[in-house]
C-alpha cells in the first residue's frame, strides 16, 4: 500500500540496539532492541510500508523512521464477558436479595 504526504501514519525506530542496553536488564529484555513508535502526518511524498519516511507529529516535530502503518487502528476493545465474573455477580445479587434489610 502506498501512503502519501499528509497521510496520518505510524513510524517505528530503534532507540537502542541490544548491545547498547544496560547490562543490568533481565536477559530477555536485553536480547531485544528498545523500540519506539510514533504517529504523525507524512512529509515524504510517497512511501511503501517498510520505507524510511519523515513525519511531522501532532506538535509539528519532525521524526524519521520506518513506515509501519497508515492510520493504525487503536484496536483495544471491551473484550468478552468473563463468565467467572458474571457468575460471581449473579451470586452476589442473589445473596443481597436473601439478606434481611437493616433498620
Amino acid at each position, binding site marked *: 500500500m502506498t501512503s502519501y504526504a499528509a497521510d496520518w501514519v505510524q513510524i517505528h525506530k530503534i532507540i537502542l540496539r541490544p548491545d547498547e542496553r544496560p547490562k543490568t*536488564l*533481565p536477559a530477555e529484555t536485553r536480547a531485544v532492541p528498545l523500540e519506539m513508535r510514533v504517529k504523525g502526518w507524512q512529509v515524504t511524498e510517497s512511501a511503501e510500508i517498510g520505507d524510511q519516511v519523515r513525519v511531522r507529529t501532532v*506538535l509539528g516535530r519532525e521524526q524519521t523512521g520506518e513506515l509501519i502503518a497508515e492510520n493504525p487502528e487503536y484496536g483495544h476493545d*471491551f473484550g468478552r464477558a468473563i463468565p467467572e465474573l458474571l457468575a460471581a455477580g449473579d451470586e452476589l*445479587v442473589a445473596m443481597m436479595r436473601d439478606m434481611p434489610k437493616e433498620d
Partner: protein
Amino acid sequence: MTKTDYASVMARKGEIMLSSLGIDYAPFMAHPVTFDYEALMGLVPYDIDEVRQVQARAGVGSTALIELRQITRLARSLSSKGKGARIFVKDEAANPSGSYKARRAALSLHHAEQAGFKGVVTATSGNYGAAVASQAARRNLDCVVVQEVFDSHGIGQPEILEKGRACEIYGAEVMQLSVGPELFYSFLRVLEETGYFNASLYTPFAIAGVEPLGFEIVEQMQTATGAAPDVVICTHAGGGNLTGTARGLRKAGADRTQIIGASVNLTGLHMASDTDFNRKHFTTGHTGFGIPFAGWPDRTDVPRNAARVLRYMDRYLLLKQGEVFYMTEVLARLEGLERGPAGNVSLAAAFALSQEMDADQTIVVQETEYAGAGKQPSAQLSFARSRGIEILRGDSEAEIPGQTVIIPDGPGRIQVRDLDMTKLRRGLVKKAAAMVEDNARDDALVQFLADETQMSPTEITGLL
C-alpha cells in the same frame, strides 16, 4: 555537537533535570540523605485554599463522596455482630481526565505556565499522561508523553493502549516505547530537544496538587457522618497518591485518621522483563512500583522525590488480582458503578478491613478511575486468557501472578494481608546508613530517618 548516545545523555541527567523543572533543588542536595522535606514542599507558593482555586479553574476536584451502602451490608453479613465499618468512595473518575491524576497535573502545569514553559513532557504508565495532556490542552501548552506500551512483539495490553489513546485524544504526541527502564533516556532526550517542562509526578507541585483530595474527604465526611473518617485507603504505586492525600487529611485536622496503602501483589514478575510485561493484569497500583517506592522514594525523575509514603502510611495491605477483579464486579452489580481498575484495589482492601472494624466506624476509599474500553476486567482478562493465563474460581490466596487469576468463590475470601511495615522501614534506614560515613551519623540524620519512617529516634539509633 551534543552527544546523544545512552551514556552521554545519562551523564547529563542532572543538568537536564534542573533546567526542565523550574525548581532549584540545590539546597536539598547538600547531604547524601537528609534534607528539609517541609521546606521542599514549601517551594509551592500557595496554601491549600489557593491550590483549590487553581484546580477549580482547571475543572479539577470537588468530586462526589458516595456511600457504598450495599457493599457495607455485604461486609456486615460476613462480620461478627457489631462489626462492619461503613465504606465510602471518592468519585475521582469525575475529574477532567478521569482520575485523581488530574489534580497532580493541574498544579504542575499551572507552575509550568507561570515559569514560562511552552510545553510539557511526562513519562508515565498512562493515567498521568492523560491528565497532563488534558491540562496542557486547557492551557495551550504542547505535550509529549513518553509511555511504555509494547513488548518486543509489538503487543500491548488493552489497559495501556487505552491510556495511550486518551493522551492522543487530548492532543499529545505519544512516544510509544517497548519494555525497558531506558524510557528515562528517551524522556531526557525529549526534554533536551524541546526545552519543555518536566511534568514529573514527584515534584512538590505534583504532590501538593493531591492535598485537596484529603482535605475534601474530611469536609465531606464531616457533613455525612459528623466526623473525619477512621480510615482512608489509598491505592499505592509511586507514592504521590498516598502522600498528598495524607497531607491533605492532616491539613484538614484529621490527626487520628489511619492511613492505609493498598497494592495488587505482583510478586514474582519483573518490571523490566519483556516477557513478564503482558503477564501483569494491572498496570499500576501494584507491588512492582509500590514496594520499591515505599522503601526508597528517591528513584525518580527529580533529584528529591516529594512523595514519601513511609512518613504517612500506617499499614500496607496487599491484594490478589482476582480479588480486585471480583470487587470491580461487586461495585458494578451492587452499587451500579462501573469504574476502572486502580481504585478497586483500595476498595477490595476496604471490604476486608471493614469486617474487622466496628460498625460505627468509617472507611474512605479515596478514588475511583474512569472505565473506558480496555480498562474493564472483560478486556484485561480476555487478553490474559488469550495468552494462556488461567482464570479460575476459588481461593485467591493460591493465585500465582503471571500464571493464574483466581476469582474468589465468595465474598468471604477477600482478605486483609499486611505487608511487614517494620521490614520496609528498616530497609530504608539501612540503605540510608550505607550512604553516610560511620562518623557522620549524627542527630540530624537520626531525626530525618525518624521522620521518614515514623520510627522513634531511639529505634533509629539502635538500627544505625
